[in-house]
């Protein structure tokens, strides 16, 4: 391909590209836009929670327009029906259209071939297909907002029978999910084959950067855990379109009318198949984040990551165990004794490798020479925040405390601490860290630090009160924030705190967006530093100058050492690239 130097058309080069770097950036931009959309939905919801039934500021007319279109009554406020739509779509967009595409699709695509010294992904055309299938899935999801009755409104978990009898939006949701699942499967198979087959000479398994390991485990989770959800999605489509009863038991009476279906199905079947995916999915979100952390921490402490092998084994074990814990989401579905014992035991076991990973990261700081760059700040902020997320998982993973905490705001607080600071902070760290690789330009550090500190404060302002409300027993998914319930009265003022934090968190993203745009528009220095962070891994060395042009490497890389050889005694510089002989 590169031999013939004919100019590729704009379409082939930037739109239907088969270059993993372009596809990675396409994924990144699309996913960032979806993250922004998911965030905006949440801001409108938070307004409704703090000030039920009052018009939303700024976007009130937009909310009213959408509500009218869907057939709900609204005076610029967020009606209960639309609240449920926003709730379901916030979860779906954030997880399936935002975080997974950015952390696997964008970071995985862009970095895995570079870090292992490969010319591209193993199947470039499949890679392009995976992006476009994702794109179509996203469009289907977006279109569903404008249907009568709105988009899916049965939560991102889509529990039947509610989802079986929901409005048309749910059908679009299922079709969209089938596309997203297909895209994930194509992408993750590609990543596995790339890592197994295309490692450069000398890049042995124990010389892989931890980020590559995390992508490998994640991809296996996607390949093996997503299909059962696809099966469940097909069943739900059959229920909705052909009137079957996979998830509908006999004798349902809905709104006073006997539901005219054959019955004989089971609502719990969906929950099993759903959580069989959705628990591993949690690790799909967090493992690549940990991978980014390892790269950033080693680079900014100027020393090897502590316990590389424990990290690798823990991540692998975590991936394996994540298939064995799914029913801890279902403790209160009338589960028998033995099952509850089994699933809370596996849940406690899976907490151990997570603790080991966190410990390795923290111990890596000891003896380092820490540079407080923006990526490192996000990494440092990640540690206590992910710590809170992990710790609050303990009472939920044990069935006895779960009786009180099940489906309360404690659950919301817990998994937002894991995926919001846990994953998003890692994504931010990654963006600041690899931006010079992608564009040849450094993002502004001062703006980056402003972005970090305010994000850190308001994330806590947003999620900490959820734990307080949860301990008070406030249920999740209440469109008035609990105002109807007696026991929630003492916790209602926290809604105001959280809502202000959410809106201020949005303000805190302005320096980031400004920074991105300003840097992109700025002139590039004619001779950008190919390795501005003085890093060791292959993507920074021997590459065609940043931003990467045609082909990845000037000379085929040969790897001679492990990934984190910083401050090696006796070396002249404090970093020894993997490709250095």
């Amino acid at each position, binding site marked *: 391909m590169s031999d013939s130097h004919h100019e590729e058309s704009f379409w082939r080069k930037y739109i239907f590209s088969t270059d993993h770097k372009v596809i990675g950036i396409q994924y990144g931009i699309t996913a960032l836009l979806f993250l922004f959309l998911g965030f905006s939905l949440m801001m409108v919801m938070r307004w409704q929670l703090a000030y039920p039934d009052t018009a939303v500021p700024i976007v009130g007319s937009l909310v009213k327009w959408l509500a009218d279109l869907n057939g709900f009554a609204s005076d610029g406020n967020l009606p209960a029906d639309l609240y449920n739509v926003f709730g379901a779509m916030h979860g779906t967009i954030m997880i399936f259209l935002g975080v997974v595409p950015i952390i696997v699709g964008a970071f995985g695509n862009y970095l895995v071939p570079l870090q292992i010294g490969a010319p591209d992904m193993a199947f470039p055309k499949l890679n392009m297909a995976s992006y476009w299938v994702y794109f179509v899935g996203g469009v289907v999801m977006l279109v569903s907002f404008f249907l009568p009755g709105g988009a899916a409104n049965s939560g991102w978990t889509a529990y039947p029978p509610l989802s079986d009898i929901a409005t048309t939006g749910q059908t679009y949701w299922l079709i969209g999910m089938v596309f997203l699942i297909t895209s994930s499967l194509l992408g993750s198979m590609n990543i596995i084959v790339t890592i197994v087959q295309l490692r450069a000479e000398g890049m042995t398994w124990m010389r892989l950067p931890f980020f590559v390991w995390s992508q490998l485990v994640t991809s296996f989770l996607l390949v093996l855990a997503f299909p059962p959800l696809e099966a469940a999605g097909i069943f739900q489509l059959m229920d909705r379109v052909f009137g079957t009863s996979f998830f509908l038991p006999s004798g349902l009476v809905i709104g006073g009318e006997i539901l005219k279906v054959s019955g004989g199905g089971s609502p719990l079947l969906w929950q099993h198949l759903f959580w069989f995916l959705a628990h591993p999915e949690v690790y799909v979100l967090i493992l690549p984040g940990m991978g980014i952390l390892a790269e950033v921490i080693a680079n900014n402490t100027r*020393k090897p990551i502590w316990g590389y092998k424990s990290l690798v084994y823990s991540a692998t074990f975590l991936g394996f165990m994540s298939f064995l814990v799914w029913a801890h989401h279902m403790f209160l579905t009338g589960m028998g004794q033995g099952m509850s014992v089994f699933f809370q035991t596996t849940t406690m076991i899976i907490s151990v490798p997570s603790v080991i990973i966190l410990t390795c990261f923290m111990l890596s*700081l000891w003896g380092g*020479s820490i540079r407080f760059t923006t990526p490192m700040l996000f990494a440092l902020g990640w540690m206590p925040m992910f710590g809170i997320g992990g*710790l609050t998982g*303990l009472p939920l993973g044990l069935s006895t405390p779960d009786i009180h905490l*099940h489906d309360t705001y404690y659950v919301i607080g817990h998994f937002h601490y894991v995926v919001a600071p846990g994953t998003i902070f890692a994504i931010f760290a990654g963006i600041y860290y690899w931006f010079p690789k992608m564009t040849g330009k450094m993002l502004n550090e001062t703006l980056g630090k402003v972005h970090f500190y305010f994000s850190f404060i308001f994330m806590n302002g947003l999620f900490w009160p959820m734990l307080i409300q949860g301990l*008070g027993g406030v249920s999740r998914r209440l469109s008035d924030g609990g105002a109807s319930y007696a*026991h929630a009265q*003492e916790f209602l003022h926290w809604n105001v705190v959280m809502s202000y934090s959410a809106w201020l968190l949005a303000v805190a993203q302005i320096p980031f967006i400004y920074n991105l745009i300003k840097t992109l528009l700025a002139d590039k220095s004619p001779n950008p530093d190919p390795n501005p962070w003085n890093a060791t891994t292959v993507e920074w060395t021997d590459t065609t100058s940043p931003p990467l042009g045609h082909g990845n490497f000037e000379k085929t890389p040969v790897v001679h050492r492990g990934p984190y050889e910083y401050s090696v005694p006796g070396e002249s510089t404090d970093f020894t690239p993997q490709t250095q002989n």
Partner: protein
Amino acid sequence: MIESLGSISKYLGLPINSSSHGHMIDNMIGWVHWLMILLFIGWGAYLIITVIKFNSKNNPKANYNGVQSHYSQYAEYGVIVFEAFLLIGLSIPLYSQLKTSLPNNNEVHHVRVIAQQFAWNIHYPGDDGKFGDTDINLVDEESNPIGLVRDGNGADDIVTINQMHLPVNQQVMIHLSSKDVIHSFGIPEMRIKQDAIPGMTIPFFFTPTMTTDDFLQKINGTKREGKGYEIACAQLCGNSHYRMKGYVTIDTEEKYNSWLVEQAEYIEEEEDDDW
């Protein structure tokens, strides 16, 4: 000691406990939070120290080898032991106590609860102590929401909507089911919660220990003053999920019995209407 250390739960903002088993769950929550607080303080202190000590200004040259001691391993073992204690020492035995120590059948009040969008139907067996049959073809949202067959065992059954009355200090067995979608039956003050799955009837039991009157006295002066026990729906069940609440009244036995008598009179009146 298990009790006293667990009493940290007082400071966690849990609702006032009004059931006989609630303190056990509270203790458990307390114990877990001890572990969480200890670990978090440990991590936080370590993080602050390292960030200051190994700042590149204070420590310009990094140490290739880093930590050599085994303290972190001991800490990890400590966490594992603590978690094992939480699991084997507390959670598993407590859960089996809560779920399987079935009370003697004669002393238990059986109540059926049938959830629907968006109400709680409470079904009492009446004088004969036996629940009548139900038939979905008899369901009428106005007059017979659960489709009760009004003869045989069902003749004296009492059905209320969103009004659950229970006697204090007596074991109650609730048989929970749902007419349409998944709901979740929770009374936060009683530390009970159970998903209602259509097609299944799930039994669970508890013992209320505080009457509504006493409870209302206790919450005088707080923000929820005047608001007693409620059934809260915890599982998204549709657009009115947020206000799908039922009222729970815990009475002394006499008051409860007289309420039952009063309800039984309503049934007779209804039957008169039919004639």
